[in-house]
């Protein structure tokens, strides 16, 4: 019973949900960004799994889009952390609970 | 001359910086690998930049001046070797000079020439050692230092043959020198002095144009002319800041007026200038040595010194151009053979006072180099 697509889909679903739980429940901004990364990676895993079991893998669609996804995720992480720095410098705390008010 | 942009430090306040990261207090402790001997710097660092610096020394204080008030004048001559243990001869000469001011003793010609030869040899030893330690602080893992030590060994062997010991020479007496150089000594000294410029060229190709040293040492630890004079710096540090003040030219003590030599003057007063000024001074010392050995007269080496050295009451201040700066001895005698007051004016102690001013605003790595460029020897700083 070789590896089938189901294995990978279930795994990426579980990982996605773990990421989502983390994002929703943790109060530390950086941990939230980390969970975001976990969710994105779960999606990548899905993409590659579908490409691997697709009918004509030589078209290279899977790796192509994963490459783009990784590039975007990296930029997003960089920007996210820059914003975290700005928030920390302004509010002197990075606890999500206390950062509520939009204006000063 | 490209404008020297001294890097203005971000902020001088002590305490939290804008990112809220607190100030790091680091004690570059007594036995830190790069402090020359037992010397501590209490640094306050903001990230990498030095915000405050407090030099702490006294670890090597041996109570030299108080002991000197218990023993007779000639008995404290061997103690002067222990002041700046790298150049024993110049310490002896400074003490002898001030003692000879207390009692007028005619120093014979041959002794004067030997004193000049021996002092210039110590200047060579001190300067090439300093450059070795300075580049070692820059990180060059000891290669230039070991070349310097190799040259120093030759000169120390000369001292050993002449005075019996390599560093604790105790060679110069009031009114002359202790013993005559044995016959082979002058030929050997001539050979070493002739071979020295070759070593200096090799040292210069290794160090002066090295881009990394230029990048690390230029515009670091800048001391302007006025600041140098206000801090009463002396010696190569003063001349690197552009002040033309060399005691050999100013006082014309001994027979320095007979030799023609130049005094190198730096333009920027930063670490690189101090390093270059010492390099050029070594070449001038070789020039003096050549002239001194050439016309060394015959004759006896000891003036008519009284058996018991009992000067009339009074005071005297003798100073010479030691390799590190102006080394002075201030003696007050009250008619007995024992000095009433024996005060040493060490050059590296006075130069050290400028350390804090030079290091503020620079990085930790620069603070280490600035300390290296001041050329302190703790025996002299703590006395």
């Amino acid at each position: 019973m070789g590896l089938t697509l189901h294995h990978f889909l279930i795994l990426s679903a579980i990982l996605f949900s773990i990421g989502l739980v983390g994002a929703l429940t943790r109060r530390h901004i950086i941990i939230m960004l980390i969970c975001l990364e976990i969710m994105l990676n779960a999606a990548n895993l899905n993409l590659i799994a579908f490409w691997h079991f697709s009918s004509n893998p030589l078209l290279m669609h899977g790796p192509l889009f994963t490459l783009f996804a990784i590039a975007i995720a990296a930029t997003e992480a960089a920007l996210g952390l820059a914003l975290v720095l700005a928030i920390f410098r302004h509010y002197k705390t990075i606890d999500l609970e206390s950062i509520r008010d939009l204006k000063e | 001359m490209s404008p020297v942009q001294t890097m203005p430090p971000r902020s001088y306040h002590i305490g939290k910086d804008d990112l809220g990261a607190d100030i790091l207090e680091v004690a570059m402790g007594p036995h830190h690998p790069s402090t020359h001997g037992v010397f501590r710097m209490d640094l306050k660092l903001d990230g990498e930049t030095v915000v405050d610096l407090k030099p702490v020394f006294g670890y090597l204080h041996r109570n030299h001046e108080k002991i000197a008030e218990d023993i007779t004048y000639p008995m404290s001559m061997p103690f002067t070797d222990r002041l700046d243990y790298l150049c024993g001869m110049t310490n002896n000469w400074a003490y002898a000079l001030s003692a000879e001011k207390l009692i007028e003793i005619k120093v014979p010609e041959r002794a004067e020439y030997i004193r000049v030869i021996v002092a210039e040899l110590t200047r060579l030893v001190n300067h090439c050692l300093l450059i070795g330690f300075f580049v070692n602080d820059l990180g060059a893992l000891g290669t230039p230092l070991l070349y310097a030590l190799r040259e120093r060994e030759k000169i120390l062997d000369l001292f050993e043959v002449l005075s019996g010991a390599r560093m604790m020479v105790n060679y110069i007496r009031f009114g002359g020198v202790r013993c005559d150089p044995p016959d082979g000594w002058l030929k050997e000294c001539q050979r070493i002095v002739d071979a020295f410029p070759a070593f200096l060229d090799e040292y210069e190709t290794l160090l002066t144009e090295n881009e990394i040293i230029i990048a690390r040492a230029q515009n670091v630890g800048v001391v302007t002319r006025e600041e140098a004079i206000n801090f009463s710096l002396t010696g190569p540090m003063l001349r690197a800041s552009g002040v033309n003040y060399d005691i050999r030219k100013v006082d014309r003590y001994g027979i320095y007026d007979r030799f023609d030599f130049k005094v190198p003057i730096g333009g920027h007063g930063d670490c690189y200038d101090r390093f270059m000024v010492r390099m050029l001074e070594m070449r001038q010392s070789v020039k003096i040595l050549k002239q001194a050995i050439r016309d060394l007269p015959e004759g006896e080496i000891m003036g008519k010194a009284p058996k018991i050295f009992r000067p009339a009451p009074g005071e005297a201040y003798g100073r010479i151009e030691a390799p590190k700066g102006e080394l002075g001895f201030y003696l007050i005698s009250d008619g007995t053979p024992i000095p009433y007051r024996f005060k040493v004016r060490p050059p590296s102690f006075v130069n050290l006072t400028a350390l804090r001013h030079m290091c503020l605003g620079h990085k930790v790595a620069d603070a280490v180099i600035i300390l290296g460029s001041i050329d302190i020897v703790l025996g002299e700083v703590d006395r």
Partner: protein
Amino acid sequence: MSLIGKGILKGMGVTAKNFFQSYYRKERLPTVEYPEEKATINQFSRNFPFLLYDGDDPVDGMRCTACTLCERACPPQCIYIIKDKDENGKAILSPRIFDIDTSVCMSCQLCVEVCPYEAIRMDSAFELSNENRFEGLLLNREELLKPNAYYHEIHPLEARETDDRMAAKAALAEAKKKARQKRARLAAKNKPPPGLKKTPPTRKKPPQREKSE
């Protein structure tokens, strides 16, 4: 327009030169492998003092007359002399105890300069370490005494000078004694003059640090 890394390359050239020359040029590899090969000690180097004696019997051939000049001239005060007395209390001109604490001595050679009788000289042996910290480095008279032959062996030039000086002094003393005897004989022939008592010039003794017994 200089190549960017020219200074660094020239520096590397110097180290390369040193690397290769250290294989064939002696001057580039001056290290001495200490325990196997020893560097020659030059005859002028000095380390710790030792006492000289002529002839073969150390005690009575000793030149030192316990005049304690060197004890007073020693800056760290590390020499300790007690004069010798024979059985009926008359002082003999030689030290019963002559100790040098080599852990205190800083080998400054002042004692050699001061000594009028050429009795103390500087040795150049430097392997002196021993396991006993206190008594080990305190050398008493027996350990300090060394024959004149040993002195000739370690400092040949200096030893010869000292011997010539001693010989000249002895000859001078001989001539003076002969002259005195001649004068005495002459005076004994024509009525002996009253003996004048010559008092040695009194010297104000420099303040003596009290020796801790």
